[in-house]
């Protein structure tokens, strides 16, 4: 099943319509303090076969957006505006309009999601096999032997001792193993789109490393369309073809991984890059972004980044910029992106991009 749609997979991505398009998506939470504007008008195309990384500080609305795509938001949240268009084989549908049955079929079969908290993603009283089989059966695949064979293959793909893991209970597996099982499970129905929400955040550094390698292999071999959510720019750089920076519920810059890394045009992206320690020991290079993310209930006027932005002017306090073209396939939402360009030219960011290397800020 996994290699079935070869013809489909090998289309040149450029000529294909994006499998997933978000159009002006707004998501709001009701809370005691008032409406939380977690996502404020996101436009995003997920191109066929690409791996797009969504980065931003904690609280910028990344998880909310991911959950919004598969319509798994909590009851207090609402998509107040916009549409989520999903396409496959030339057909197109608005995820927001699906009825309960269609939605059930859409989930996992078309778009699966690896959650932030893999540790608790498994039902503690069911064996891995039962949770896998539940999933297959829910989508009309009830040939036990075939499913089992497929699951074993997937478990091997994620480098687990498949025969043992398949009949284990979740608590018998370590965090890293559970994360891999979850990744294997996300591939069970060979979905077109895979959303990964901080798949490495809860893990120790060594395990993080193996998961990242696994994801890179997944990207190279399976040619899925991936939305990779992370607050860690270094990890994003390793896995992404394109990177989108999110701030206060909006995408403020989007471009190829190279452009974002070498030629950022938004002060927030620049801040994020400078906050990544390049080489252990050179702490003088480390500049974290001052201040904290804005209150999403009571947002600042104008550009939402202005209270923290070193480039801010009077205009920034009054008007909020929209994404504008700043280069080939590269957009940023900043009135003063040229100033950022000059700044980057004066103070180059990297001697070399740590393309295959991750440097950790931890120990």
């Amino acid at each position, binding site marked *: 099943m996994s290699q079935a749609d070869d013809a489909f997979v090998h289309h040149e991505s450029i000529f294909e319509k994006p499998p997933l398009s978000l159009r002006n998506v707004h998501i709001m939470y009701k809370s005691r303090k008032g409406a939380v504007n977690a996502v404020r008008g996101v436009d995003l195309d997920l191109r066929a076969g690409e791996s797009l990384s969504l980065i931003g500080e904690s609280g910028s609305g990344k998880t909310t957006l991911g959950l919004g795509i598969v319509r798994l938001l909590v009851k207090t949240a609402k998509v107040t505006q916009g549409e989520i268009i999903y396409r496959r084989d030339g057909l197109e549908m608005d995820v927001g309009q699906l009825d309960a049955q269609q939605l059930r*079929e859409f989930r996992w079969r078309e778009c699966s999601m690896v959650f932030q908290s893999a540790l608790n993603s498994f039902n503690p009283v069911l064996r891995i096999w039962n949770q896998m089989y539940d999933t297959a059966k829910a989508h009309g695949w009830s040939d036990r032997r075939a499913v089992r064979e497929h699951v074993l293959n997937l478990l091997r793909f994620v480098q687990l001792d498949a025969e043992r893991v398949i009949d284990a209970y979740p608590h018998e597996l370590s965090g890293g193993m559970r994360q891999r099982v979850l990744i294997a499970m996300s591939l069970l129905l060979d979905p077109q789109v895979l959303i990964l929400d901080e798949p490495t955040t809860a893990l120790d550094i060594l395990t993080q490393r193996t998961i990242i390698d696994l994801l890179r292999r997944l990207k190279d071999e399976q040619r899925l369309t991936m939305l990779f959510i992370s607050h860690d720019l270094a990890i994003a750089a390793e896995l992404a073809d394109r990177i989108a920076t999110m701030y206060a519920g909006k995408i403020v810059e989007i471009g190829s991984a190279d452009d974002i890394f070498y030629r950022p045009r938004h002060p927030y992206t620049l801040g994020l890059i400078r906050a990544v320690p390049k080489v252990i020991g050179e702490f003088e290079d480390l500049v974290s972004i001052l201040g904290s993310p804005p209150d999403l209930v009571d947002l600042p006027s104008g550009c939402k980044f202005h209270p923290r932005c070193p480039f801010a002017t009077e205009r920034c306090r009054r008007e909020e910029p929209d994404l504008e073209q700043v280069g080939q396939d590269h957009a940023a939402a900043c009135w003063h992106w040229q100033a950022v360009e000059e700044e980057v030219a004066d103070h180059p960011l990297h001697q070399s991009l740590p393309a295959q*290397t991750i440097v950790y800020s931890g120990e």
Partner: protein
Amino acid sequence: MATTFDATQLPVEAERKPSRAAGFLNSFLLRRLLKALFTAFVVITLTFFLIRLLPSNPIELFIQELMVQYSMPYHQARDQAAALFAIDLEKPLILQYFDYLGGLVRGDLGTSILSPGTPVTSFIKRFLPWTVFSVGLALMISFTSGVILGLLMAYRRESLLDHILTVLASVLSAIPNYILGILLIIWLGVRWGVVPVAQMRGSLSPGVQPGFTLAFFQDALFHAALPIAAYVLTTVGSWMLTMKSSTISVLEEDYVTVARAKGLKESRITTAYVGRNAALPLFTLLAISIGFVVGGSVLIETIFQYQGIGYVLLQAVNRRDYVVMQGVFLIITLSVIFANFFADMLYSWLDPRIKFGAAE
């Protein structure tokens, strides 16, 4: 220097925690058994001495009964009592205690003081099944409906149905079962006259023979209906409330969200993902409640004149029939111990995270 890792050099993660070893299981069972025996011993000892602290004693009470009923003079009544009962209450307590223990070891629970010649075991054989039947059935009904209603309340949280059921459950679980029993008799039996309370007395109608016949089961249910109603109504509320809060917290678990993300059918999510996990903590309460319900049967069976073991116990207490009291308390103790053991096994079977015996 940048730190790089080469994943190919990392071993494939293969380790799995050790599976339950059979030897461990056995030693655990043995420990469990010893603990149960010790508990039983302590309770037996306590009951033996405590019931003898009750004011008066069976002989005194019997003598007084004779004096009041037949206007006998004291010495005549005492002589008659002494002739009737082959029991020496003058014997030192500690020796009586050892006699009793010795009997227990031989499986001899003694004979009733006030019905000479009737062994306590025959009381138990005759009356216990009715209590087990009514209490067991009530517990099953109460547990099942509490779980289902609690689940429903959690799913319909903050709805009118939830509010009504919550109030109902809180009120019901606050009423002691004997009060509810009296209310049932007053309202159903006397005020509205919808239930033939008088005919429902006893555990079977005269002439009905126990056996695998429909008539027998119908009659047994007919007679047990009111006690069962009283048990169910007074216990279902706490099951409902516990299940509701447990379900609410399980509904927030990530694995439920993941189950939805996987596109599972709602029915499967409700039973295997939400219901099963939410019901787990209730099983530990099951054991405790078995103890309470058996204890509670004393008053309920007396109110409804239902001839189970609780009814026997009250009779024995009133007449200070120490031997029967001891026997019944022993049965109650054993049933609680057994229920605990059973609930533990059930729990460790239902929840794979609980290694059999690791809870200790």
